[in-house]
């Protein structure tokens, strides 16, 4: 017998794909035989298959033609061929969104779902629910309830899963089926158990108590389905996560007991849940790690992958817990699946000893070209972490990184390498020259503008301070000759920094800049002209202000101020001091070491937090005329996390005022709060000027109210102040379900925790990339030296951290990192004070003496530019509490 597609193959001359040259119009033409009597099941089946195949390939069907085909298809319900009927269900599902009036098949499907043929019932339910909307759902509700508790597992499962899909659309209807779902959960069939559990959880997930009850019931009764167990583990760990309690609860015991389940899927789920728990102790981790260790030698690649990926995650937080698995991980290095091998090596790099680093690096370089970019980034991140751990190994790493830099790879990968090299350079002064040399070589042939400009910026910063700055000039100037505008402009800026720092290079740099003034691009010419003129002045202060440490204002803020200025032209020149300062970028080290799909993240300069606040506050009429926003603090919690009302406060500092923004959330679903204000009682000479209430605070919708305070300008020592806060509001009781409030309410109040204003609130962080230059710029005539005792601090690290937190200033030149085994340290801080004429700039030179011990004196030397000077009053006890800083006019 000849196969049925052979003839067509010969006609089309195609290979073995009988569907390859399907024409939509031809298929729709063929679909007319659906109307013939008697129905020919085989041919109809084949045509339906073709239609579904075309839809699957992404062929577009117009509404008219789809509807026509759909209506023709409905005739096929007359045939009793099983496969044909099943294909009709599939067609209904596929066409549910493209054809019109699909609901005409409702009665046929309802008949099938309640009929005698069990084979039809499940699929009919699924098809029916796909075409049903909320109003029609009520009509079939009775059938759905019956189907959920049907004794045929496929019917019950289909009904449960379809109900789950409909929860999104008609929660209120599906909610009524809870009892049926409850009954289904005790079914003997494992899939029915699983689906019932899933539906029950989705219906109850907002009700913690109900979820807890459900968990208790199922963890005791013992389910048979491994899928259901996995679901239970996830629900349990989510509950644990939310309660933030200790891990001695029965929930944790349940998860741990799942480690002894006989199904691998459940065991892995439990191990992974334990690993993902925040603040897990090493002892709690141990059993999870040991099952993962067993999985490492599984013959199944997926299991090995799962195990090593999870171990990798453990290694990030608890490297010592994974050390026991080192031998098993060693075996995985040669795994044929490169993803597994890479994860094994990166895990070993985190857990292994310093001596194994060389060997692992050699092994990894043997196949680094075979793995996907995602995993290459993982490798680079592991190296970056390693460099922080073993600074002495930086030469090996640097070599390896430079080799990787030469290989092919996408932008993300190259960027990870460049970032890693830059961080090594910053951590290890002795690696600076080799690192810079590798980067110089890289930008010779670099197609990514962003990276090239970044490296040029770094060279401008670091290059002039190396023993032989002249050798970098050539690399930089090559960029000016060969590259695109953005890179040329960056190169010009870098050149200027060399000229400003090194007097002997200045004449040559001036010659080079002269040439750049002929550039075809505006920006490059402008920069060259500007730097040229600044450099020719040969003044240190000018160099510091305009070449080393550029603008410290916020760019979106500057844009807005300039726009405002052009709208209202005035005789006065534009005043830079009216522009809000930039908040110093948070230079948090990324510890996340895992393959990430970063490609989807938009690379956009988002306005900073402060710019957003500035915008929000400016929209409130009461706060106009306060001037630019100087600083916004981190939110301070004024209530416990689990109280009736959750309130946090953000302190916004202006030149002469402060605005307290209270973000309140009402967590009671039977109350509606109105006219919410926070009343503040200051302890010092602060004056409450105005309160802006939040008009209405419905359940779980956060709202903000504001309080405006005038800062005392006559008493410069009143820097810190404590406010006692009370929230006052009008309560209206309401129906928890509908949210409909009663007509009348009553006044009530709620006492909040005290709020403190400290020195840090008056100082904005300013990053000075070249601290030395900024220090010189201010000069020693404005210098003030004081000695402090740090009583309650034990380590140097702690002292540095406390000082930074207390003063709220920006550490510069990475001086916040205390090198190991040192007993003295110099900390550079920079910041700007609120107040007089836009705020003077305060660099601060903090030096701890040799032989740091608790309670030893601590020198603080500060230089401020004008009006205000900072005076510290010494006090012998705790730095945070009793030290008072005050401002004093000279």
């Amino acid at each position: 017998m000849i196969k049925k597609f052979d003839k067509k193959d010969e006609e089309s001359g195609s290979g073995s794909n009988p569907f390859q040259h399907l024409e939509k119009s031809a298929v729709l033409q063929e679909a007319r035989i659906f109307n013939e009597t008697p129905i020919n099941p085989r041919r109809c089946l084949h045509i339906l298959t073709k239609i579904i195949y075309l839809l699957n390939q992404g062929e577009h069907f117009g509404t008219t033609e789809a509807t026509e085909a759909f209506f023709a298809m409905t005739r096929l319900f007359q045939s009793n061929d099983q496969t044909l009927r099943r294909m009709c269900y599939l067609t209904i599902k596929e066409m549910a969104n493209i054809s019109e009036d699909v609901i005409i098949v409702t009665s046929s499907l309802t008949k099938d779902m309640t009929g005698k043929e069990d084979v039809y019932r499940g699929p009919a339910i699924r098809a029916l629910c796909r075409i049903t909307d909320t109003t029609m759902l009520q009509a079939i509700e009775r059938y759905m309830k019956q189907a959920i508790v049907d004794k045929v597992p496929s019917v019950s499962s289909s009904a449960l899963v379809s109900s789950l899909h409909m929860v999104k659309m008609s929660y209120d209807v599906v909610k009524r089926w809870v009892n049926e779902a409850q009954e289904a959960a005790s079914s003997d069939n494992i899939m029915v158990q699983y689906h019932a559990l899933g539906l029950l959880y989705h219906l109850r997930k907002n009700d913690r108590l109900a979820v807890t009850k459900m968990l208790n019931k199922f963890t005791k009764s013992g389910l048979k389905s491994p899928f259901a167990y996995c679901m239970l583990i996830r629900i349990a760990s989510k509950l644990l996560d939310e309660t933030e309690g200790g891990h001695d609860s029965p929930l944790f015991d349940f998860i741990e007991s799942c480690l002894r389940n006989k199904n691998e899927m459940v065991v892995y789920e439990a191990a992974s849940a334990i690993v993902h728990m925040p603040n897990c102790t090493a002892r709690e981790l141990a059993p999870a790690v040991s099952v993962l260790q067993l999985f490492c030698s599984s013959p199944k690649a997926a299991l090995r992958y799962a195990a090593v990926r999870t171990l990798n995650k453990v290694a990030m937080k608890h490297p010592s817990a994974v050390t026991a698995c080192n031998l098993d991980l060693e075996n995985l290095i040669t795994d044929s699946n490169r993803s597994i091998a890479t994860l094994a090596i990166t895990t070993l790099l985190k857990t292994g000893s310093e001596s194994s680093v060389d060997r692992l690096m050699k092994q990894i370089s043997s196949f680094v070209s075979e793995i996907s970019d995602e995993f290459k980034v993982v490798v680079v991140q592991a190296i970056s972490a390693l460099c922080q751990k073993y600074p002495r190994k930086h030469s090996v790493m640097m070599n390896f990184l430079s080799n990787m830099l030469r290989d092919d790879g996408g932008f993300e990968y190259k960027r990870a390498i460049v970032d890693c090299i830059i961080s090594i350079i910053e951590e290890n002064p002795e690696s600076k020259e080799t690192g810079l040399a590798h980067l110089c070589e890289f930008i010779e042939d670099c197609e990514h503008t962003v990276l090239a400009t970044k490296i040029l910026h770094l060279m401008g910063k670091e290059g002039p301070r190396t023993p032989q700055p002249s050798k970098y000039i050539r690399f930089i100037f090559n960029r000016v000759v060969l590259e695109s505008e953005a890179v040329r402009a960056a190169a010009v800026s870098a050149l200027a920094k060399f000229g400003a720092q090194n007097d002997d290079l200045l004449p040559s740099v001036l010659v080079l800049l002269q040439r750049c003034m002929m550039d075809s691009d505006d920006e490059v010419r402008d920069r060259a002209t500007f730097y040229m003129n600044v450099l020719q002045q040969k003044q240190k202060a000018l160099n510091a202000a305009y070449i080393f440490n550029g603008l410290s204002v916020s760019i979106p803020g500057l844009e807005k101020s300039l726009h405002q200025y052009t709208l209202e032209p005035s005789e006065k020149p534009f005043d830079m001091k009216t522009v809000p300062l930039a908040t110093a970028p948070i230079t948090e080290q990324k510890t996340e070491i895992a393959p990430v799909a970063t490609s989807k993240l938009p690379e956009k300069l988002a306005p900073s937090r402060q710019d957003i606040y500035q915008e929000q506050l400016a929209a409130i009429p009461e706060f106009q005329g306060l001037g630019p926003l100087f600083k916004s603090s981190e939110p301070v919690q004024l209530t416990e996390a689990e109280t009736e009302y959750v309130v946090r406060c953000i302190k916004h500092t202006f030149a002469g005022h402060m605005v307290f923004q209270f973000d309140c959330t009402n967590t009671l679903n039977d109350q509606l709060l109105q006219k919410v204000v926070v009343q503040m009682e200051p302890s010092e000479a602060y004056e409450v000027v105005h309160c802006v209430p939040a008009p209405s605070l419905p359940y779980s919708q956060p709202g903000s109210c504001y309080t405006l305070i005038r800062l005392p300008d006559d008493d410069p020592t009143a820097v810190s102040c404590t406010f006692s806060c009370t929230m006052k509001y009008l309560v209206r009781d309401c129906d928890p379900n509908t949210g409909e409030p009663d007509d009348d309410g009553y006044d009530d109040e709620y006492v909040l925790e005290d709020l403190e204003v400290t020195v840090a609130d008056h100082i904005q962080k300013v990053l000075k990339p070249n601290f030395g230059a900024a220090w010189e710029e201010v000069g020693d005539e404005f210098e003030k030296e004081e000695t402090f005792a740090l009583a309650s601090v034990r380590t140097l690290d702690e002292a540095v951290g406390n000082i930074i937190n207390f003063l709220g200033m920006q550490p510069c030149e990475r001086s916040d990192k205390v090198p190991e085994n040192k007993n003295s340290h110099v900390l550079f801080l920079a910041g700007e004070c609120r107040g007089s004429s836009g705020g003077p700039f305060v660099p601060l030179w903090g030096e701890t003496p040799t032989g740091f011990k608790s309670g030893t004196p601590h020198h603080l030397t500060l230089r401020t530019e004008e009006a205000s000077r900072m005076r510290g009053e010494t006090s012998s006890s705790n730095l945070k509490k009793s030290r008072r800083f005050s401002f004093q006019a000279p």
Partner: protein
Amino acid sequence: MDSTSPEPSLYTVKAVFILDNDGNRLLSKYYDPELYPSMKEQKTFERNVFNKTHKADNEIAFLEGMTIVYKSSIDLFFYVVGSAQENELMLMSVLNCLFDSTSHILRKNVEQRCLLENMEGVFLVVDEIIDGGVILESDPQQVLQKVNYRLMSEPAYGFVLFDYITGNLEAQTDRSQLL
């Protein structure tokens, strides 16, 4: 990437697809409307996955933030895609069920030609294993029982005889028409 534990949900499978040995789509279903909403994005994703996986039969890969488990047979590639947080073994059980059920309805001839000739059977198998991203069934025996599918081509001679005896000639005429 996944510092948080996965949200408890039955929606396990993000996508499933079967590709031929040139990476062309034979069958594919995407269950998360937010993941690759357009046909173009879907096909690019399939192409990327294919390029990374067709050379070595490694069973599992991680691409574009997705965990992908896969299996190949002669000129066919079966893929099941889940989120990065998903339990890899769950995805594996779906893949194994898909492969075993397909293999059974194709009488162990898991190759492109046979698959295309029995496309409707494969559509039905996928429909019985996953419904809108939820695992409906993971036991191949159960799936086969529910699909109750008979192999399309090469009907056994016994069937013809049986049809003849029972007087069910409809199927026969159909076959002769196709000849």
